[in-house]
């Protein structure tokens, strides 16, 4: 980007409501949300309508503000991890990973290969499950209701795997600073294999329902298009950006957790409309299945081994050691009462979450609690482009557009 287009902006809700209340507009001004079936949570859109045509839209957020970033300043590094689950609640493991990688980069600690591979596997499963929710809700917003339930059938399988490894289906907190929370359980590989075997056929099934469905194409093709220049200027990342033709994927551009060792492709499209975003996400699911399969093979070949760092200042000693060694007991006690103290400094690590570039920025003042945590939330930043895409479309398209951006309001408001 060399030139900046100053006409691209995000209107404020007031710029629409105030003229309307003063009677200066002939158009209908409608609150869409916060309590609306298809704003994917409590997003409020102030919509100015001329009949069915959207003249202007202003997103208004903050209805789900939970103060997660601020709260993390009052928790030790391990405790703060739990809060990351709650931001993007459709992809908790991705948030875990981003946070954990940032803390690890502060600490400069080494993570065992096995933990890294398990992280990649689980994060890719998370990407699939998140995309399945996106697919289901997107189809549901266009009233193709069956796809929703088909998608949830496969998501169930993924959540079962998460439950197997962490005990929780959604708020897993499975990745910890220094590795994983527990070792991978028995029955993990068969479950993953069952999923990898069945998933490609299931994606074909969804595509059979939608990809060549005429009404689906009519509703999505050429609707809500954005070009790559505008998308970049709005800071869009993830499938929304890749649908405009920019092959930007953190997994390739700045590999983390050993992504450079896996064979996969970045799906891109050229038109940047809803249909292309749909195609890109569908192809991403297929690529993720490939990564999961590769990671599973590697993990199997590695056999048993450590799943967290050997540094006792960061990761707790095994329970059995605590009963035998005084030193381990002290480590355990110190770690869970005080926490570890990363050196002064800051770190920012970006990962490719299902929604785009998720980066966690942490400032450490040398105490066991972070001085400041900030998340670059892809949902929030992608949402900026919504008014630009929605202007001139019909009201029904607005619903499809929100779905195609796939915002998670927990992450937008944090």
């Amino acid at each position, binding site marked *: 980007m060399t030139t900046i287009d100053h006409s691209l902006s995000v209107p404020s809700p007031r710029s629409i*409501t105030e003229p*309307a*209340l003063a009677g200066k507009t*002939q158009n*209908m*001004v*409608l*609150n*869409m*949300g*916060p*309590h*609306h079936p298809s*704003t994917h949570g409590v997003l*409020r859109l*102030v919509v100015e309508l*001329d*009949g*069915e*045509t959207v003249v202007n839209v202003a997103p208004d957020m903050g209805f789900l503000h939970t103060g997660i970033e601020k709260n993390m300043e009052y928790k030790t590094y391990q405790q703060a991890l739990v809060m990351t689950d709650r931001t993007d609640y459709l992809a908790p493991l991705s948030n875990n990973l981003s946070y954990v990688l940032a803390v690890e980069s502060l600490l400069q600690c080494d993570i065992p290969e096995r933990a890294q591979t398990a992280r990649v596997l689980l994060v890719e499963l998370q990407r699939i499950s998140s995309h399945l929710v996106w697919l289901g809700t997107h189809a549901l917003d266009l009233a193709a209701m069956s796809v929703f339930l088909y998608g949830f059938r496969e998501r169930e399988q993924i959540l079962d795997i998460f439950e197997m490894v962490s005990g929780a289906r959604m708020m897993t907190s499975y990745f910890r600073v220094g590795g994983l929370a527990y070792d991978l359980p028995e029955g993990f590989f068969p479950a993953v294999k069952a999923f990898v075997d069945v998933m490609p056929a299931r994606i074909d099934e969804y595509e059979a329902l939608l990809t060549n469905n005429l009404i689906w194409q009519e509703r999505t093709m050429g609707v809500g298009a954005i070009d790559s220049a505008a998308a970049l200027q709005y800071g869009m990342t993830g499938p929304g950006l890749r649908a405009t033709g920019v092959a930007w994927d953190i997994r390739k551009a700045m590999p983390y957790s050993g992504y450079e060792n896996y064979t996969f492709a970045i799906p891109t499209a050229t038109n940047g409309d809803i249909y292309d975003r749909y195609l890109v996400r569908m192809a991403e699911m297929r690529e993720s299945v490939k990564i999961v399969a590769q990671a599973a093979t590697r993990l199997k070949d590695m056999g048993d081994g450590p799943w967290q760092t050997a540094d006792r200042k960061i990761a707790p000693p095994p329970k059995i050691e605590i009963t035998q060694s005084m030193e381990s007991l002290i480590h355990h006690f110190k770690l869970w009462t005080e926490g570890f103290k990363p050196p002064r400094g800051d770190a920012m690590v970006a990962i490719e979450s299902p929604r785009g570039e998720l980066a966690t920025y942490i400032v450490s003042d040398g105490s066991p609690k972070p001085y400041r945590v900030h998340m670059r939330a892809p949902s929030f930043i992608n949402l900026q482009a919504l008014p630009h895409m929605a202007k001139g479309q*019909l009201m029904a398209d607005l619903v499809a557009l929100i779905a195609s951006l796939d915002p998670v309001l927990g992450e937008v408001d944090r």
Partner: protein
Amino acid sequence: MLDAYVPLLAMVGIAVFIAVFVLSVSRILGPQKATVRKLAPYESGMEPIGDAMARFPIKFNLVAMLFILFDVEVIFFFPYALVYRQLGIPGLIEMGSFVLVLLVGLTYVWKKGALTWD
């Protein structure tokens, strides 16, 4: 002759009775605990901006106009439908020219863009 319409009238009576009955029974059976918030119009949980009974774009009206035009023309077909076999070829030609006029109208409206939404 008009006897056949009596059941129809009776049915209208029964239908109105059912509607009134159902509405009043639910009025009696249901609780009545109105609050200001509950009685406010629903606009996704926000205070409504302006009145809903406002002006509406002319485009919808245009559809209604076109409908009346075409529907009246369709009505002319109905008498023809009963006797078209007796009228034979001459009737067919007459009706054909009528259809042609209708088609010209439709084409005009079509080309004017009145059937295109935006």
